[in-house]
């Protein structure tokens, strides 16, 4: 049982909150996704091998970290810099020691960005329900070709105004499908699976700690002549995931020099070849009016894009372990914790023993 300690890393840049535990030689960095925090890894981190040292930051604008603005034109670069600062500043990782990186959802995108920006530092990479390497929405094919050149139909302007308002007002109830609790129950997890009440309450509070505004969640937006009439602005979390700015396809080169574990839930509604949050799918279902049809605005093949980038990494010498969790949505580490933990431990142990 590893008790996690909470502390802050202050040098330099935004003040970042970190959960860390364990004293072993195998250093594992856990990176959360959008509308979540390091705390989402607490159940996983509580039962990892004693030879591991775990470090999980709250990214800027999430949890207890400072709400420094997100420069979306750098894609996920600001967040990857946060991870780098934590690893360098937390006095945990000896200089130059490779780290096992794990990212969940948008956090997997952050980890891919980090691995691209810091070649040779990833002892292994674990991508859990990863954001497509071509970002979220608005690309039409396996090579991530933009649907519209201004990124219309992606970014902060596509986020439900009600969701933003309920986050801002701190709505911890399950009164609306757009409340944090409902999102956690119905999108992060596959119903009828529920977290224990105490954990659910804690994680709802974590989601509600998100900094809401143009500089953070979701960000600013611009008008567009293309459907649905909005394009990404230049700041904030959701714009940082827009394919206009987020291109992680170079991860294939990073993956060619390390080993990658890819974990996904078969019933994931958010990251899928037909995501229920992709405006193309919502348009096709009639939930967003005026959809111009599959030729003009097709669904983004998110899972297939991830696969294509990993296959390129393999062809250049990388190792990939792929896994599909059935009866599982977006959060295998919360939905099937013991099974996820065993797979992760097997993978990281093998990666630590291998030479790359």
């Amino acid at each position, binding site marked *: 049982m590893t008790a996690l300690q909470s502390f802050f890393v202050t040098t330099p840049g935004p003040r970042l909150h970190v959960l860390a535990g364990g004293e072993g030689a195998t250093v594992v960095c856990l990176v959360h996704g959008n509308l979540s925090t390091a705390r989402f890894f607490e159940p996983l981190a509580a039962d990892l091998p004693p030879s591991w040292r775990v470090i999980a930051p709250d990214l800027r604008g999430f949890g207890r970290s400072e709400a420094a603005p997100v420069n979306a034109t750098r894609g996920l670069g600001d967040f990857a810099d946060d991870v780098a600062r934590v690893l360098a500043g937390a006095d945990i990782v000896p200089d130059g020691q490779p780290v096992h990186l794990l990212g969940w959802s948008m956090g997997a995108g952050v980890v891919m960005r980090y691995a691209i920006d810091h070649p040779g530092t990833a002892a292994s990479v674990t991508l859990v329900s990863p954001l497509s390497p071509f970002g979220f929405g608005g690309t039409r094919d396996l090579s991530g070709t933009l649907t519209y050149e201004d990124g219309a139909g992606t970014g902060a302007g596509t986020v439900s105004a009600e969701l933003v308002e309920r986050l801002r007002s701190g709505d911890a109830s399950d009164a609306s499908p757009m409340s944090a609790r409902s999102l956690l129950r119905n999108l992060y997890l596959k119903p009828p699976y529920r977290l224990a009440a105490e954990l659910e309450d804690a994680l709802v509070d974590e989601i509600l700690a998100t900094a809401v505004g143009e500089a953070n969640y979701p960000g600013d937006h611009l008008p567009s002549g293309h459907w649905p009439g909005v394009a990404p602005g230049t700041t904030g979390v959701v714009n940082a995931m827009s394919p206009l700015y987020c291109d992680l396809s170079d991860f294939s080169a990073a993956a060619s020099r390390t080993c990658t574990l890819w974990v996904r839930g078969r019933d994931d509604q958010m990251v899928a070849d037909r995501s229920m949050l992709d405006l193309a799918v919502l348009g096709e279902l009639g939930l967003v009016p005026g959809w111009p049809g599959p030729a003009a605005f097709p669904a983004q093949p998110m899972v297939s894009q991830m696969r294509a980038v990993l296959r390129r990494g393999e062809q250049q010498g990388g190792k990939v372990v*792929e*896994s599909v969790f059935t009866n599982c949505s977006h959060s295998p580490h919360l939905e*099937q914790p013991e099974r996820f933990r065993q797979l992760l431990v*097997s993978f990281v142990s*093998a990666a630590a023993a291998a030479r790359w």
Partner: protein
Amino acid sequence: MVTCPGAGAAGLARHDGVAIAYQVIGPSGPWLVLVHGLGYGRRGWGPFATMLANSRRVVLVDNRGIGDSDCPPGPYSVDQMAGDVVAVLDDIGIGSCDILGASLGGMVTLQVTAAHPERIRRMVLIAATPGEPQGAPMPDNTTALLRGHVRVNNESTARKLIEGALAAQTVATRPELVDCLVDLHNEQDQAPEAWRSQAAASAGFTLRRTLRTMATPTLAIAGTDDAVIDPANTIALAFALPDARAFFVAPAGHLCFWEEPELLAEAVHEHLDASRPAEAGESGA
């Protein structure tokens, strides 16, 4: 009910005087040979084989000791069983092919590929191990079983073994699948001596060839909840073989191809249909 491969062209190969029965299903496409594990004959693949045969000619082999193959006195060895598979290839006139093996059949598959790399285009290993030291140790329960400390001579023992080869969740939620596998066990009616002869091959297996020297493109598959062979072997295989990837399905056990046949068939088709630039050049594509 579960659909099993229908009657197709059947044949009988000979290896060292032992008759090895096989059957070909699937109308056309590249050759794929399926080699089964301990206690399973050609019908032991269930719907998985049918899904693979939709775009391939699939050869289902009865290992020595089961089905319509001879049951010579044992113990058998993986070397012998690999020779049996090669005899089937020769009998059909297959020069090179893809091969897929599960459990003991995975050991046989590794051995066929190690001995005849020029005849194997791509390989799929399910719930396999190269044996120690390249692989992880067998779980104690499996060792006891293979060494004959557990007697497999009645239906309740068979049911227990089958349940142990599935994920606990599968046993709890899909009793009809357990019943189907028990029925299959009863229909196969393998003689206890033949089972022990096959078990000895599993227990004694060590791949002598170094995995790092085997260049055959490989997909290594396991169920996360496999209690019969440690799924860590699948990661070890994927990491040590130069051109290999691992694929896990969760939750599933040793018989993951019975538990999630669609997921596995999709992964196998993708692996076998992929072609390296060199292969694409050779085929003129």
